Structures are given as C-alpha cells and as structure tokens.
C-alpha cells in the first residue's frame, strides 16, 4: 500500500520540485491536514481527489501559502516555505493557481487581468506583458476576447482566461482547485482540453478535481484524500483497477 511517502523519507530537492513532509494544519480545533507527506517530481501531473471536506483544497492552498500551515515542511523548488517574506513572494511567483470560482478581476478587461501581475510583480514592460498575454490567449483559444470584461464571457471562457492569467507569470507549477466544478457540463470540456494541452507541454500540475476521466487520461499519479490524510496514492492504472484501501473502493463505487 502506498499512501504517499513516509514523513521520515529522505528529502531530495533535486528530483522533486515539491517536497512536503509531516504537514499538519488546524482550523481552530479542527484538524484539517494530518501528517501529509508528498513528493512531486518535475513535470509530473498529480490529480488529487477525495470526498468533500477531506482537506484536498486546503492541501494545495498551503503550497502557495494561501493557507498557513502549523507543522511540517514545504519545500518548493528548493525554497522552504517559512515566515520569510522573501521566500513567500518568490514561491508565489513560481506557482500559478486556478480557482473554482475563476476569481477574475471584474473591473478589469481580460487583457488587463492577464498583464496586471507581470507588470506590477514581475516588472515587465507593458508591451512585453501584452505580447505574452496575446500569445497565451491564443493558446487557450480565445484571442478575440482580449478587450472584454469577465462579466461578458461564459464560464468556460472565464476559466480559460484564469489559466492564461496564471500562466502569464511563467510559473513552474500550476495548482488547479476544482477548475471545472462551477461550470455547466457543456463548458467543462473546453477547460479540460486546455489543461491536457498544458500537461502535455510538460507543466508540473497539481489538480484537485472530480473529473475522473481527466485523471485517468492525464494524471501521472492520483492522491486520494480522506479526513485530512492521503489514504491511497498511485498511478491511474493502480488507482482505478487495483485500489487497496476500502475507503477508495467505496469512493470509486459511488462516482464511477
């Protein structure tokens, strides 16, 4: 049985872009994450699934410090996530994130949404940032929407803009927090297609999702969370056809 790596496993920051050891987090008295330890290799696509409230979203949010963890170690690309402001800023600019509710800035155009962070955080010139943005909009398939406001776009288009916005910072890692859960069924595919293309291009991705089709097709590894622990981890092959843990079997029987 392979439930991630052991908390005392050796740390190899050369091979692994993300190293998590003994991660614990509480919301007040509620123990959300319990001794989570994971290694993610460069260019690996990891899908995280599990029932609601199992801590999977919280887990990926701790990786770019949207949530602060109380115990354990997180090392991203060789930089440890501590209380050091410089490290936090550095790690955030290396990790892109896509949210369930898109979280586009409604008062800015698509173009401004994408170029804002490169200009203000990366200090690129406006031309440079806009060129990059156009290229990314092309890549996510909506080059014609650059001057619209988010409110004028469909959910699928908004989520593709959100992906482009994250990619504009040229991150090494992309976090996806249920990127398709707020979408109408007919729009899910267009977002998943973009994500597949991204995975094929060699991006390191951590994806929290209920899209088992996507997991089966794209994931290198699937982590299954329950009650704040990783109860099962393995390749899609292993996960879907030969699950070890009873909880995983129950989960799969209910969703497949």
């Amino acid at each position, binding site marked *: 049985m392979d439930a991630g790596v052991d908390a005392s496993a050796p740390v190899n920051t050369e091979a692994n872009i993300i190293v998590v050891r003994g991660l614990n987090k509480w919301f007040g008295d509620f123990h959300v994450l319990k001794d989570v330890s994971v290694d993610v290799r460069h260019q690996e696509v990891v899908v995280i699934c599990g029932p609601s409230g199992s801590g999977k979203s919280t887990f990926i949010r701790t990786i770019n410090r949207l949530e602060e963890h109380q115990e354990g*170690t997180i090392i991203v690309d060789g930089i440890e996530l501590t209380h050091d402001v410089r490290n*936090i800023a550095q790690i*955030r600019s290396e990790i892109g*994130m896509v949210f369930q509710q898109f*979280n586009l800035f409604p008062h800015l155009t698509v173009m401004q949404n994408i170029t804002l962070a490169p200009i203000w955080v990366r200090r690129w010139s406006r031309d440079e940032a806009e060129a990059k943005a156009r290229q990314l909009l092309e890549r996510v398939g909506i080059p014609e929407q650059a001057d619209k406001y988010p*409110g004028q776009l469909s959910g699928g288009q908004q989520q593709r803009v959100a992906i482009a*916005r994250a990619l504009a910072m040229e991150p090494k890692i992309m976090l996806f927090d249920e990127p398709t859960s707020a979408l109408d069924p007919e729009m899910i595919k267009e977002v998943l297609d973009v994500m597949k293309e991204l995975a094929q291009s060699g991006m390191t991705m951590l994806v929290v999702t209920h899209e088992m089709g996507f997991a089966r097709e794209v994931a290198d590894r699937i982590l299954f969370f329950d009650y704040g622990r990783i109860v099962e981890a393995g390749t899609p092959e292993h996960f879907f056809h030969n699950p070890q843990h009873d909880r995983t079997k129950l989960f799969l029987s209910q969703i497949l």
Partner: protein
Amino acid sequence: MSQRSPTFDASLHQPVPLWRDVRVLTLVAQIIFAVLVVSVGIALLNNMLTALRSAGITPNADFLQRTAGFELLEGPAFSREDTFADAFRVAVVNTLRVVSVGLVLTTILGVVIGIARLSSNWLVRHIALVYIEALQNTPLLVQLYFIYLGVFLALPNLRDGPIELPGPVYLSNRGLVTPGVVFTETASIWFLYVIVGLVAASFVWYARTRAAERAGHPPTGRLAPAVATVAVLAAVGWLAVGAPPITFSLPVPDMRELPTGEVVVRRVEGGDTLTPEFSALLLGLVIYTAAFIAEVVRAGVQAVPYGQIEAARAQGFSYFQTLQLIVLPQALRIIIPPLGNQYLNLAKNSSLAIAIGFPDVFSVSNTIANQSGQSVTMLLPHHGELPHDEPDDLRRDQLHQPADADQGAVRMSDRYVYVETAPPEARKPPATEVGALGWMRKNLFGTWYDALLTLVFAFLIVYAAVGLLNWVVGAANWDVVVNNLRLFGSGRYPADQVGRVTAVTLIVTALSGLAWGLWGRMSRVTQILWGTGLVMLLIAPAFASLFPIPPIYAAPTAGTSSPLAPLIFVGGENQSLHLTFTPVTRETETPKGFIGGASRTAWGEYTRTALEPEQADDLTATVWIAEASAPDRPLVTLTVTSGGEAESAEITLPAASWYVIQSAVEGASGAAWLKIEGVPPMRSSTSAQAEYEQVYGPPPATIDGERPHRLDIAWLRFVGTRNLSDFVAVVVGPFAAEVNRLALVVSLVVVVSYWVGMAAGRINEKLSRRLAVAAWLVSFPVTMLILRGLDGSEALPVVGTDRWGGLLLTLVLAVVGIVAAFPIGVLAALGRRSRLPAVRIICTFYIEFVRGVPLVTVIWAANVMVPLMEPRLASVDSVIRAMVGMTLFTGAYLAEVVRGGLQAIPRGQEEAARALGMNAVVMTVLIVLPQALRAVIPAIAGLFIALFKDTSLVVIIGLLELLGIARTVISQPEYVGTQREAFVFIAVIYFVFSYAMSSASRRLEASGAGAARKL
C-alpha cells in the same frame, strides 16, 4: 508514520533573518502604528493642557460644585444659586423628557405614515411620499428654527389674547397651556390599589390562557376580564381613600384692566405649561424622525416577499390574519434594527436643542463650559450619554442603501451572470383598456373606504393649498428674499469680488454638464421643464411690467423736525405719474400699497398718533417734485391743510434721470399721505443698483445737504393684502430680474457642456471619461484658489474664509468635508479590516467613538479644541475649524460605507491576487479598492447629501452659511417678522439640491452604474 519530527537536510533549515520574518514584520508594523498614534495624541493633549494652564484653567471636576450663576427655566426647579452639577442634572432630566416623549410620538406617526405610503389609495400614498421627501430633504435644524420662530414664537402675544382651543388649551408665544393632572396626598395609596389590580389582572390573563390551552382552542377572551379586574380595583380604591387621589387643573386666564380701560390677559394660571422651546423641539424631532421611520416601516413590509402573502391567501387566511400572522412577524425582524438606529438619531438630534435655547444636556454643558472655562472637561459627558450604534448599521436611511445589508454581497456575485444570446423578441401585452376612469376606479375609489379617504384628503389638500397660496401671494413678505439674494448666495463675500463666485459656479456647472453628457441622459421631461422654467424666468420681468404697480405712500407728519427726508427715484422720459396728497383724519383707513419708512404694523398707528384729539389739527404740508440735478426747480407743487381737501396732479417726466420728492410741514399736529402712482419701487440689490447707475448716472449724494432715501424696495413696506396682480408686479418680476441672467448663463453652460460631453463620449468614451474625472479632481484646488485668492495678488486678492457665507459656504463645507474625509475614511476602513490587531483596534475605536457622538458636538469640540491642540493652529478661523470637525466626523461614516464595499468583494479576489504574487499594497490599490469604491458610489452620494444638510449645524458656532445668513437677515430691523419667508426660502434651496442629488444617486444605483464597469 505518525512520527512528527522528520529528519532533514540541515542545509535546508536556514534561520529566517529577523527583517524578513513575517511575524516580526507584522509586530513591528503594529508597534510603529500604535506608537505613532499614541504619541501624536499625547502631543496634542499636552499642547492642549499647556494652553489651558496658561489660560489659568486646570481641567478637573471641582468646578461642578461651584455656583452656576445662570437660570434654567425648563424642567425641575433651578435657580442661579444652585451648582453646575445641579444644572447638569436638570439638563439630563430635560433631555430624557424630550427624548422619551419624542420616541413614543414619532413611532406612532412614523408607523401611520409608513402604512399610508403602502396604501392602495393613490392620494394617500402620495401625500405620505410628499411628507417623507419634504422632511428628509431639508435639514432638521431649518425645520426646528421654522417651527420655533415661525410657528410657536409667531403665536399671538399673551397680552393680545391667546388662541383658545377646546380643552381648554391656550396657545400663545409663551407656550401651550393644557389642562393638567394633579396628584393629591391620597394618590400614593390609590396607586397601591392600582398595582394590586395589575397583579390580579395578570393572574386572570394567565388563568384564561391556561384554560384555553387545556380546552384546545386559541386563547381569546382574556383581555376583557383582565381590564375589568384593574378597573374594579381602581374604582374600589378611589372610593376607599376618601378624597379623590387625582384632580384636574384647568387653565384659567388671569385678566387685568389697563389704565386705558383695555382688558388684557396677564397670564394663564393652572394647567400644565409646555414652553415654546420644549414644544418646538419635540414637534421638530417627532415629525422629522417620523419621516425616516416611515421609510423603515415601508421597506420592512415591502421586503416580505409577495409569495408569502400569496401563500397565506392560498391557505385561506383573511387580510388581517395575513398581516398579523405572516407579514408583520417577518417585517418586524427587518424593521427593528434600523428603527433602533432612528431612535438613536432622535436622541442625538436632541442636542440641536441648543439652537432654540432649550436647556438639554448639550446646551447646558455649553453654558457651563462658557461660564466655568471647563470647555474641555464638559466634552466628556456627550459620549457616555449615548449608546453606540451597532457597528454594522450604517445610517442606512440616509445612505439610500437597501434595507437588507447582505443584498450588496449577493448582487456582487450575481453580476457575473453570463448571457450568451439575446432572448427572443418579446411581444407587447394585449392592449387593455385602462383609461383615466379605470385608473381612478382602481387607485382612488376602489372601495367605499378608499372613496371616503380620497374625499377627505382631497378636501384637506385643497384647503391647505388655498391657505398656502393665500400666504405666498397675499401675506408673505418676500422682500426679505429678493433684497438679500446676494447674501443668501455668497454671504459677506465682498460685493466687488462676487464675479469669482460666479466663475466658480460656472466651472462647476460646466463640469456637471459634461458629466451629465458622459454618464447620463437628459430625459425629455427634464428638457421640457428646464426650458419652460428658463423661458418663464426670462420673460417674467417684461410680463410683470404689464401689471399695474401698487401705489407708494409717504407721510409728511407734523411734530417732527425733518418730516420726510428727500426721496429719490429713477424715471424715464415721458413716464407719467400721478400724485395725490390727502390730509389724514382719524377715520382715514390704512391704504393698500407700499409705504415708506415705517414698519407695516406700526404704519396705521404712526400716522394716527400724529393726530392730537384735544387740539385742532393745524397741519399745512407741501410736497414738490423736481429733477435731482435741479432740486430747486419743482415740476409740480402740492399743498394741503388739515381738514382741507385732497390735491392731486398728473405729470409727465421730461427726461430719463433721477428725480426727487421733497416736503415741508408747518403746524403742531396732523399728518398727510402722499400717494404716488406710476413709479415702480426700485430694486435694492447690488446688481440692480449698478444697472440704475449705468442708465441714469450716479444718484445724487445729497439734496440740500440731506442724505436722500431711495424709493427702493428695502425701504418700502407693503401693507394690506396683495392680490395676484400685485404679487406678479412686485414679487415675481423683481425676483426674476434678479436671477434670470445667472439662470440663462448657467443653462447655456449646461447645455453646451452636455453636448460636448455627449459628443466626446461618442468619439472616445473611455478617454473622455478619464479626462472628465481628471477635470473634476483639478477643479477642486482651482475653485478653492479662485475663491480664496492669492497672497499679494492684484487680480485675486485674498478673501478670508470668514467672509464666505450663504449657499457658497454650505456647498464648500459639504464638498471639503467629503473630499478631505475620503482618505481618512478609506484608510480607517482598511485599518478596521486589517489582520493586525493594533491597527484594527485603533481604527475601530476612532470609527465607533465618532459615530457615537452627535455631529454638533464634534463641530463644537473642533471649534474649542483645534486652537488649543496645536499653537500654530490658534489663528485659524471657525470655518476651518468647522471643516476639521466635519471631516473627522464624515471620515468615520465614510469608513463604514467603504467597509461595506470591502465586505462585498468576494474572498476569491484577494486570494487570486495573492496567488499571483501581488503584495498587500498592490493588491489593495489595483484589485480591492477599485471594486469596493465603485460598489459604494451611491452610498457615498447619500453620505454627501446628509453632509450637505448637516452643514446647517455650523450655525451653532456662529458661521453664516445658508441657515446662519437667514438668521442674520431676519434679525435686521427692516425684516422683523419675516422669519417664515426666510426659512421657507432656504428650506426650498436645501430641498432642491438635496432632492436633485438623491434622485440622481437613486438613478445611478438603479442603473447599477455604481457597481458595473462604467468609469
């Protein structure tokens, strides 16, 4: 696996340097902030104490035991030998009296009007609407002054006989005397019986309820037995105690005969007396607060979804059952929090008592402070006096926010709804015959009850309208307005510099027109109304000249050394005038028209006292009229003697010039009236005088060594009742002549800039809007510069803020208040939501402290404390001090408004910004604030309107803004008795501005412009 101390590569665990550790940084930031705030506070306090010490005052509480030395005529007995502490106690009792009675009355009135607002009867609904709009859009202080000076003090003199109403109730300018209740010695024993009765009644109530529950039917029939129990015991007690415990005292006027044989009322004895101050304060607070409560009630009832009522109907509930069981329980939950706020507002507003001399807490503290020098110490009680608002409750009513605060958040996310294709074209509903009759049946005569209401209210409206029209046209003396327009407009701003005020007006007008063209549309109705109004204003002077001018009277009278100073007036070539010179007898009636010099009530007596009954009148009076340049060559001369015949003459003036009327009298007694027809009274405003000089040359400075009077409206008084023709000739015409040029210029500027705005918007909307916003920002310092001037400049000499007044000062105070409060409000709002506890606590303290204090206290405190706190500020004048006070006050309210906007932003926005690596400053400036501020634009507009009305409070520290100017004007001897006219005029100005702004902001809110991407 459960082991929690993993082994790591030691090289990874580098200690975080202190200057980069988040925890250290946040702690340091908080310490710096706290130290900064505290040290500034200490420095200011220290300065203040030093200043006080150097003035020989040490703030402490000992002064409270000193003798007051002033009297309080209201509330518990108090004399000048009592201490300051006693005075304060009396004040607390007075405040509690007004507030407690006021709360009950205002609730009743508010609920009635709120329900009337929801009536199915169109007329009732709209009367309630007019009531609400009129009261909400004028400042409470103006209303208070109107009620106090224009109603209660305008009641008849006690001497002349009070008004007697059934009751009996006596109304006079000394107050209201009603029958009173007197408790005798046996009252306390009788009260015991009543208390026993109440206890017994509650047992009866309880027993009936239980019995009904056991029987399994709804508890009915418990009220009557309970009431009966109380009544029986009270009756038994009344008989048992022997002497009646309660007696009534009826007011009886105490008459006295004067030596002249006249019988006058000396005073009214017995009964309960309500002073004019108490009555005015109570009435003002009640009717003002009721307008807001009515809106709260309406919003609460309307917030109950219609589906609830439909469901109740479907269940078979009756109308009243639906109301009682379904609507009210749900509405009350929404009504109660804002209702509590209104109660707080009433309590806070009671501090306006100072304006009309009612000794409440604020007013007495003010007196004590002045008497004892303990101004700073006396500031302390005001805060404790009032409980705090609930932190989340903005002054919703004034902010035009939806009753349900959460709606903001809901709307925020609803906005991202995506609509891919336009819905199919909608069909028009089948044409139904509605018609005027159908409308009336539905809205006015739906049921017999509706029809009755309609008739009653229609009668009342007609009655009130006729009364109002009679007053406006016939009785009111509008000279006070027409003659003082410049004062109302810009106060004591130097007359030769008024062009600067006009320039500023035009700049602001142009920018407003531009904004209107860029962001809004001028509706057809607005265009028509505006155009018609302007045309009417332009033709009014010419139109008015078609109406006959009422005659002017002057009275050469015996017994005075200088019977009548030379009167000068302007006359055109071939203008004909008719003179009649009549000797006065005791039977002569007071004529109708303008009279010179005397007050209008004194006129009749004035001429008649010149007639001595015991000796024969022996007046010989002569008047002659001449060109002012040649006063010795009369065009015509008239002479009359007492008891003789009247003389008259018709003359045609030879040239456009100044003319003079002179007179001479001989004899010991008697009077004569000179009636002049064909000469319009001259206008007295500065602009009119300039016009006369342009056409007729400068007026003669002296005639035969005497300073002449002008036959101008400021010197003349209208006596008698005007009719419509007189009204048009002497009020409408001159008023239009005063304002029509400014109105024309303003309208042209608006139209031109509106079209420019529209055209620019079509060419490049985004750029033009940005430019317009930039122009507004630039206009603020520019206009201030134009108004104040430059040191040492020839073209723009400095006009100190102490000379600013009228509407100009009102608007400047409001604009400066909101602009200067903006940074404070935004920072305090951000601070209140900060994760750093020290910042949060300090900002919360500031916001809640200020919001717990009435504005009038803040203004007063700023006036007293600003010069003390910082020696360099000692010389700033009251206008600047008032601005400081209003800015600090508005900042706190603005902070709450902005906080509402911040709370409406979904959490995901911040998370997304942080995930993109933005730091706190970038995130706040680029992501959070633009959205938050846009969402609260309507609320900020509401705050501005409230501030605009609240500027009237600076009258307390003696500033001459609109209300202050009105008070100054009516205190001039020639305008005595015109307080109603003056207050009605400024109330209309306040209303027009406030209503225009609030309807614009409502339209903004309805269009969603506040929240959507429009800027």
